[in-house]
């Protein structure tokens, strides 16, 4: 079967038009798509065929998306992207806190959803699974709340991160003490935007460095000449 080679995405939504529309978009982008109208059907498909990724609607009759996402996160596999009609920051945080890997609000750009799906799959494949799933990590006195996208400095002051800075920092934190090339970082942190240059990585890194300069462990992001960047701290879950 060709499906063996293609990543399998399971779309769970009670609205048939959305299910089919999404399936079409995903299939066109090189995924194998399966659909389920509710959580019970999702469980059946996961048990029978499995999936590499679940796109999960929040509000469904029967078991709602949050509780289904929590169950899947507890199992550890497959990764989940919540797709919800509740698009507030607060809702997004709740979704990420129950263990979803990403969260998008309806209506979204379908191609952005596909891009995020790719990013989630990539992270799930090559990232440190524990670090990826951790709600928060600590390093060098800082604390990064992944769900809230909040960085708290050693003085306990919340330092807001831009979306780019957050993604970059998460990429570093998930791959500590490893040299990451600009291309790799672009791939990890700017997955949804094709128009970013290498230079943008340098700009983001220098901004991030400024926000991390309160560390007592010296430079946390070191430049490796001719290769890329290295995150020197050792993050711990918490």
């Amino acid at each position, binding site marked *: 079967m060709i499906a063996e080679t293609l990543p399998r995405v399971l779309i769970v939504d009670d609205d048939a038009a959305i299910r089919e529309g999404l399936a079409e*978009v995903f299939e066109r982008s090189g995924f194998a798509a399966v659909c389920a109208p509710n959580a019970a059907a999702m469980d059946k498909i996961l048990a029978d065929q499995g999936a590499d990724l679940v796109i999960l609607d929040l509000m469904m009759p029967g078991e709602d998306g949050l509780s289904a996402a929590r169950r899947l996160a507890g199992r550890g596999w497959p990764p989940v992207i919540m797709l919800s009609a509740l698009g507030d920051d607060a809702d997004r945080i709740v979704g990420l806190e129950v263990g979803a890997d990403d969260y998008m609000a309806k209506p979204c750009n379908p191609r952005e959803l596909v891009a995020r799906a790719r990013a989630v799959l990539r992270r799930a494949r090559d990232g440190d699974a524990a670090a990826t799933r951790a709600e928060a990590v600590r390093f060098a006195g800082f604390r990064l709340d992944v769900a809230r996208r909040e960085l708290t400095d050693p003085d306990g002051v919340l330092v807001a991160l831009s979306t780019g800075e957050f993604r970059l920092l998460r990429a570093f934190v998930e791959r500590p003490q490893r040299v990451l090339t600009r291309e790799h970082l672009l791939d990890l942190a700017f997955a949804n935007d094709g128009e970013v240059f290498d230079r943008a990585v340098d700009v983001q890194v220098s901004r991030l460095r400024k926000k991390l300069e309160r560390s007592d462990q010296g430079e946390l992001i070191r430049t490796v000449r001719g290769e890329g960047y290295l995150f020197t701290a050792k993050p711990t879950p918490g």
Partner: protein
Amino acid sequence: MSAARPRGLPIAAHLALLVALVFATAFAVTVTIILALPPRPPDVMRSDQIVSDFIDGYRAAARTGRAPRGAGMHWTIHEAAPAIPSLAAAAPVKADIAQRLDIAPDKVALMGEFVRRDTVVFRVQRTHAEHIREMEMHIATDIVREPPVVPPARETPAPTPPPPPRVVVIGPPDAPAPPAPPAPPIVFAPAPPNVILLSGFTLAAELPSGRWLEMRQGRNDEEFGWILRAALIVGATLLVLTALALWFARRLARPIQTFAAAVQAVGVDPKSAAVAEEGPRELRSAAGAVNAMAARLRALVADRTQTLATVAHDMRTPLMRLRLAAENAAPEQRARIAKEVAEMEALIASFIAFARDDSASERRVRLDLAALLQSLVDDEAEAGRDVRLVGGEERLVIMGQPLGLKRLFANLIDNAVKYGARAAITVRREDAAVVIDVVDDGGGVPEDMREAIFKPFVRLHGRHGENVSGAGLGLTAARSIARAHGGDVIVADSPHGALVRVRLPIEEPIKTAG
């Protein structure tokens, strides 16, 4: 919410003040009563004792030239004879003194309150030997010596020593007084016949130097001890009572304090724990009322949350369908549909955000406002909009709600790039506040609209009179968030474009390590 402390003293302080006032008054009245009582009359003294005290003092004064001290008397030395009226009954005493001091009797003055002999009985303790001798005398002789009426002043150089007082024995009546009785009994005796009794007296005599020595029986010192003891006891009682009252007042006020805190918590978040129904009865019923209100609020909030979620779902699901359908359309149509959908979505989002009013429930943390603004500006710049941040190199730590503040400034930046082409944000500190100006290069806000635009659903037209997208809720939300942080948002004067000024109170600068 760290609202300013309400004016007025706490109940405990009121009670404590009242109690302190009552006790202080009670104390003052008690002391006044004690002090206003007529002083205890001076002790009655025997003239022989007075004379012997005076002669001792006189000799000392004659020797040193200074007024002696002691004997419970006030001693003074006068340059001239003090004006002391004479007391007829005291003449023999004066004569006695004059004789013993070897001065003329008119150089002695004595006055005082004469006390009849038979009204006073002295308690006398004598040595055993004296007692026996007196008993023998009493039994052997039946002489009752008549008191010398007026002893001849000068003719008798040898004064008769005061005779042994007649003794009334209150003891074994007919004991033959063997050497057996171990302790001398206490006897009570009236003054001897030639001894007069005086109280409140003044006695003076001329010293060899010509000055006069005066001895005055003072106020009874015993009295001061008594007053002091009374005052101490009253004072100590009042102190103990005050402490008890304070404790009680605090105990009374504590449930009111916890009540206030609990009501405050319910006001901020109806889902917080119920107010404990304890303490005084009035408080219990108030707590009950607040809990009933909180329950109704909870039901209301739950209803509203449910309604909003349903509305969001029902409106966004068709939009999502539309967006997916657009994927099959021609690229230029797809872009147009996407734009309309995004606009529609923005409207729905602002309605829902307005109706939800998350500002009350989000937690407050210490956050760096400069970093927050920088991150917003970076996000805008990444989205290709011309937004710049001026200032904000220093950390600006405030207490605030990260999502709420992000929404506040995102709304202002949104407006700026909607009505103008670019936005500039300046940050600066002013005393205990951070002032953030968001300036655009649009048409500005007419003077008469500067307050009105903060009302819900009020929108301005664009520079060229065109309609501008949006629900007209951005500034309303921004102001409500700023006010929840103890700050405000206003539209200020600006030479060109609109200037929206946010003022937020700053936290005390934290000490930076190193």
